[in-house]
């Protein structure tokens, strides 16, 4: 049975300009034409991509010390608070964070025009950001207040550290109630008037390596237009979720935590994003190269939209109340056709992650690798997979022990 390829063999081919790279979209047609075995021998790497809102994202900063020094107890960037429960002039800015005086949902649905994700986009775009910090004063850090302006260049370090990105598959959101609802899956019309989905399907990284054979800790990735790494499994990583015969999860499953230098990134691939009635977030561009170590990997990367299914979930009652009920499943081919059937009714669909940008990321990564600018990172440890026995826990309400 077949042949094997190693990371170092592939990296050698990248350095000598002999590597063969195709995108997860292109490989589908090649396999249909030439078969798995031939394409596996021909292709070294398949590139994937995704560009969607990823709420568990944010950045760590070290702002440097002013004179005299300060232990920053509170920090605001363009009025958006950052978390300061770490060392004196370090902070973490979460992309979902909102300005102190945002009207939120007081005039429902709130617009949420600016927040942490927008601050990150502004910084990456080279814009100047208003910086305020307060401290309570210590013998070593006497200063109590500073107000200044910073750019990304001014800070010592700024790295994106996203605890949960690139969800492997996701719900298709609908609304069975009789009024409009505003969710993190967008505005959903009453009476199942529309269906929103959020995955690049056949181009999505973790759907092309469903059992995380090659995507692990240390995998080098395209992140926000720069180079990043998989740092850990993501939060809510649920590798033991139900899977189809092809190994592909039939609903939300694996996730990754990613890290990368914000100073290398580009604003077009990190976009501050506002969800009406819900909040702010960051739309993140991620691309992951999948090495074709053997025929099985090629088979995984040849997965097609019609082979990937997602559950249809009601976001008016079932999701908020965690009933676990679904209204059936649909394939990404059906979702991308623009209409699915739910309870016998034709329902128009819309994506909330950009397929066209996912394709652009996979293409960009392909060209970086072909040009010898991007080498594969071999994982130093695999992510927990389908045999890990992990199960997702809910939060229990308990009395004091």
């Amino acid at each position: 049975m077949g042949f094997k390829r190693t990371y170092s063999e592939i990296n050698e081919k990248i350095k000598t300009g002999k590597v063969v790279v195709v995108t997860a979209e292109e490989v589908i047609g090649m396999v249909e034409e030439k078969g798995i075995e031939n394409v596996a021998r021909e292709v070294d790497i398949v590139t994937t991509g995704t560009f969607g809102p990823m709420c568990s994202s944010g950045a760590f900063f070290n702002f440097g010390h002013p004179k005299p020094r300060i232990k920053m107890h509170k920090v605001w960037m363009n009025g958006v608070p950052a978390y300061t429960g770490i060392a004196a002039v370090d902070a973490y800015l979460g992309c979902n964070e909102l300005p102190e005086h945002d009207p939120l949902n007081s005039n429902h649905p709130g617009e949420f025009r600016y927040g942490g994700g927008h601050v990150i986009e502004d910084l990456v775009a080279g814009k100047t950001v208003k910086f305020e910090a307060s401290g309570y004063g210590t013998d070593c850090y006497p200063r109590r207040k500073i107000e200044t302006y910073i750019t990304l260049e001014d800070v010592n370090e700024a790295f994106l550290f996203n605890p949960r990105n690139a969800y492997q598959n996701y719900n298709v959101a609908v609304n069975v109630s009789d009024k409009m609802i505003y969710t993190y899956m967008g505005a959903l019309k009453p009476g199942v008037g529309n269906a929103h989905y959020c995955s690049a399907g056949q181009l999505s990284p973790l759907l092309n390596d469903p059992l995380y054979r090659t995507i692990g800790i240390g995998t080098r990735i395209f992140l926000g237009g720069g180079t990043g790494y998989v740092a850990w499994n993501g939060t809510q990583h649920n590798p033991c979720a139900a899977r189809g015969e092809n190994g592909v999860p039939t609903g939300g499953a694996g996730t990754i935590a990613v890290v990368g230098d914000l100073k290398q990134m580009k604003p077009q691939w990190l976009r501050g994003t506002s969800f009406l009635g819900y909040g702010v977030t960051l739309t993140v561009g991620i691309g992951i190269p999948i090495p074709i170590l053997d025929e099985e990997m090629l088979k995984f990367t040849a997965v097609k939209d019609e082979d990937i299914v997602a559950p249809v979930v009601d976001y008016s009652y079932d999701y908020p109340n965690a009933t676990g009920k679904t209204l059936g499943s649909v394939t990404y081919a059906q979702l991308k056709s623009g209409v699915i059937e739910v309870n016998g009714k034709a329902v128009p669909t819309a994506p909330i992650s950009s397929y066209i940008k996912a394709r652009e990321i996979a293409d960009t990564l392909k060209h970086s690798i072909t040009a010898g600018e991007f080498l594969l990172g071999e994982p130093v440890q695999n992510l927990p997979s389908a045999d890990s026995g992990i199960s997702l826990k809910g939060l229990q309400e308990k009395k004091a022990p």
Partner: protein
Amino acid sequence: MSPKKIVLRFPSQIVDKPLIYHLVKDYELMINVLKANVNPDKEGFMVMELSGEPGKYEQGLSFLRKQGVVVESLSEGITRNVEKCTHCGMCTSICPSGALYISRPSMEVIFDDSKCVICGVCLKICPVKAIEASVNGRQ
């Protein structure tokens, strides 16, 4: 004639006059109001689709002008900032007139402004604020 989109501005002195009624009754014009902001004692503003028999259409408009209404053909309206748009597609299931739609299989979001009814729903829905509104110069 096919309907034309026009913008009417009413000086505050005449907002209480039933001018639209006269367009229908005296000039037999068909009106589809797309957007209106008319308040007592303030300048009024209305965007409508207007159609009817060509002669009467012109007479109707000159009637409005004689009353002091500024009549302009609709320009701009809703625009999409192509630089900002990520083609996520979320607007397409909300747009009521099909002006924002996805071209398949490329999955590119297209904005066909000839179908736009300027309802403005996309303005708040667009997650990256790529939809911009200006009605005859007004934001």
